[in-house]
């Protein structure tokens, strides 16, 4: 009755829950074979195989899924499709017939051109990319080295540091808003304002305890025997880090990377506060500022450009995204 596939699955689903934190990437060979992290769900789900054979069940389920698909497309994708259409529609047409599916007065591709050149969306996009790249680098450096110290090297102060990380894990970001701002404007010891410098965004981004903790938990699950073997072969801690731990951690590095990038792309309040020079601002900070002084069509084109990069990035790195957001509910102390 139970096919080998199901047996294998059941076994693995048990080991997932007994690990506590769901890091599917830990069993790397299996993950690679899968096309999507959530596609390996139970074959025997709510609807049993015998139920499946009944036409009424098949039709019912099929219709429900069709409905779900339509709802997802209309509600989830609809607003973005509207944005894509409106971005190439003349402003007057958007005002008069916002829901028209056709172009009454032709498509206005010039919207995109104007947004890119006159509104300088390209320039702000480059700013955003620069900010994202720096934040990503800082976050990855802190998370990998920190996770390595706390999980593998484990000095005596590791426990204290871990405890302090857990304290900050649930600290709402808002508590730090003002003291962080003061830290940037008038840092102690250095006495040089970081206002309008990208360091003001890059460095605080590194203080993400979530990153360090998921990294540490991933390292915790790597086989210790391998570290011992490397040590016996004469690898020092530096060599162990670069040649053993990092290459084995590609899945989690992918997860942390996509989230670092997307989080910074979505960020508004902090860059808005510390980057007051319009030339240095990222696109998300510029958009509200140019909203009032730009033609609607051109403005919507600018918004479309601003969200195309993360959407395309998501579609490419879908696997890392969906794997990572499952982690959201699974951090434990």
């Amino acid at each position, binding site marked *: 009755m139970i096919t080998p596939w199901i047996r294998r699955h059941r076994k693995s689903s048990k080991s997932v829950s007994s690990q506590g934190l769901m890091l599917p990437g830990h069993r790397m060979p299996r993950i690679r074979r899968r096309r999507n992290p959530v596609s390996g769900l139970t074959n025997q*789900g709510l609807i049993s195989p015998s139920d499946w054979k009944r036409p009424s069940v098949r039709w019912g389920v099929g219709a429900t899924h069709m409905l779900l698909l339509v709802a997802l497309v209309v509600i989830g994708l609809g607003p973005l499709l509207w944005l894509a259409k409106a971005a190439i529609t003349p402003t007057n047409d958007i005002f008069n017939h916002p829901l028209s599916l056709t172009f009454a007065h032709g498509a206005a591709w010039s919207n995109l051109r104007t947004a890119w050149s006159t509104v300088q969306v390209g320039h702000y996009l480059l700013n955003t990319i620069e900010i994202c790249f720096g934040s990503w680098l800082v976050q990855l450096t802190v998370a990998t080295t920190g996770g390595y110290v706390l999980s593998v090297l484990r*000095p005596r102060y590791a426990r204290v540091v871990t405890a302090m990380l857990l304290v900050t894990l649930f600290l709402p970001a808002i508590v730090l808003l003002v003291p962080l701002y003061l830290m940037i404007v008038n840092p102690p010891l250095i006495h040089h304002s970081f206002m309008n410098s990208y360091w003001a965004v890059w460095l605080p981004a590194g203080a993400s305890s979530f990153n360090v903790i998921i990294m540490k938990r991933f390292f915790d699950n790597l086989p210790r025997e391998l570290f011992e073997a490397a040590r016996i072969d004469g690898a020092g801690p530096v060599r162990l880090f670069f040649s053993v731990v990092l290459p084995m951690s590609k899945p989690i590095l992918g997860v942390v990377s996509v989230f670092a990038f997307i989080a910074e792309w979505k960020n508004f309040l902090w860059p808005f506060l510390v980057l007051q020079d319009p030339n240095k601002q990222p696109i998300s900070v510029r958009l509200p500022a140019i909203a009032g002084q730009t033609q609607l069509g051109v403005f919507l084109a600018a918004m479309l450009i601003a969200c195309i990069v993360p959407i395309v990035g998501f579609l490419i790195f879908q696997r890392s995204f969906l794997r990572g957001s499952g982690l959201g*509910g699974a951090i434990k102390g």
Partner: protein
Amino acid sequence: MDTANPTASDMSAGSLGATEPGRARVHYHRRRTPVTWVRSGGLTTLLFALPLLLIFGAFSWYPMVRSVFLSMEMTPNLVTYTWVGLDNFRYVIHDPLLPIAVKNTAYFAFLALIFGYPIPLVAAVLMSEVRRHRGFYSALAYIPVVVPPVVSVLLWKEFYDGSVTGVFNTILGWVHMGPYAWLSSQQMAMPALVVESTWANAGGTVIIYLAALIGVNSELYEAASVDGASLWRKVWHITMPQLRGVMLVTLILQIIGTAQVFLEPYLFTQGGPNNKTLTVMLLIYQYAFGSSVGSGFGYATALSLMLAAFLALFSLIYLRATRSWSSE
């Protein structure tokens, strides 16, 4: 304790209360645990720990301590600090805007629960039964999450256009309703914000539920089918109890998130109309950066500390919930 095993000595580190990587610690190791990598690796370890210690020290731990002091100081010009004790807290508590902001935030959180809590759950349970192209479904659900919040808010602001030719008013016009004022209506502004926020965030919750549904033991479904349980009974008696832990976690995460809502009221309505969408976060922002930068920093930190203390309660529940859930 006096052992050559590095892990055992690590275990005792906590009980010894080792706080700082002082010199004494290295000597201790040199004398007692002659393991090569510990003896020679102390400095390397510290170098590896340095990025974490510096970044968190400067941008997390120090500001945390600083905020406690700031909440009891006045900073009229970012240079001089005057100790005022609990005056800031007194000012904030007696500010007539505070009860309004608290009420609005609670209202936002409540509406977000009504709209945003059941939808992802139902969607995830339905999606978990999709046999082909499930990845396509979850990608569709997740796309709004990667759209920058600024873009989604400004986009929905267009949708909420109050004129007859606004997007939503046009749709409602087809069934002869409206036009509604949406964002400039005192009754509709807050629900409008919540609908946008639900659209922007629900996908993330769907994926958390989907990940949790992997963990539901298929044997239970098999057994229930053998016993002749109907679909609803399976949903009610197997799926839901198995998801209980995750449902608590998403609930807490959502409350923590909505209590800090800022972008929607800031970009949609600036707190209006008539302070109907003024949230606690927006009030904190207005204290700190609203009029003249600096003069209200004390008030802002005082209020954020109060908010943090309130949220700490939920964080504790969260920690307990995840612990029991993942040890199941």
